[in-house]
């Protein structure tokens, strides 16, 4: 991307983990994702789900964790964060 003009918006890189049905739909279990600084989990979700109706439909039942703690969608992400996209659990 060296040919692109320098942007005024700095970027952050986070690691996204996806589980169960979300892992299958997104096509990855773990991936590094670049986002604009100040991006929230909701923004990450929009970016990942965009155009996929089945993923979009899972938002209401999906919980987010950041660095091992459950957090709300409006949480602002920081570079180096590990984010987990978690469908309803099914242990036992």
């Amino acid at each position: 991307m060296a040919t692109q003009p320098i942007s005024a918006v700095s970027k952050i890189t986070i690691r996204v983990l996806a589980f169960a049905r979300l892992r299958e739909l997104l096509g990855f279990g773990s991936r590094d994702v670049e986002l604009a600084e100040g991006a929230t989990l909701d923004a990450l979700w929009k970016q990942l789900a965009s155009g996929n109706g089945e993923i979009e439909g899972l938002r209401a039942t999906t919980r987010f964790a950041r660095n091992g703690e459950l957090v709300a969608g409006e949480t602002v992400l920081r570079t180096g964060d590990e984010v987990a996209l978690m469908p309803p659990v099914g242990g036992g």
Partner: protein
Amino acid sequence: MVALSSAPLDVAALVRDVQTKEHGAVVTFLGTTRETSPDDPRPVAALEYEAYDSMAIPEMEKIASEAREQFGPLAIAIVHRTGRVALGEPSVAVVVAAPHRARAFDACRYAIDALKARVAVWKQEVYADGETAWVANTPP
């Protein structure tokens, strides 16, 4: 002791781990792989589990602590399988040793209910025809 295990569960070893001379009661709960699905008419051939280890293990530790606080003194082991679990095999074991049976039963029940609601483990039913579906726990 809490753990995730990709190998078959050794229940006798878990009982040995928790039992001491102070304990007059050992209660073991095993969740085993069942052929009938609550959601699908097809026979289930196996279950496949995946976990988010770095959240699942601390949550299992927390549940064990809560059980000790509420029903202790007691010793508790909670182990959950990952990967493919054949029909009839245990996918989860909760073993509680306590001085008397009432608190051992109560703690065991508390721990398995909390695990099913809170621990970051996901379950996929694998049907005899090779198709699969993810199955979420329903609130008790």
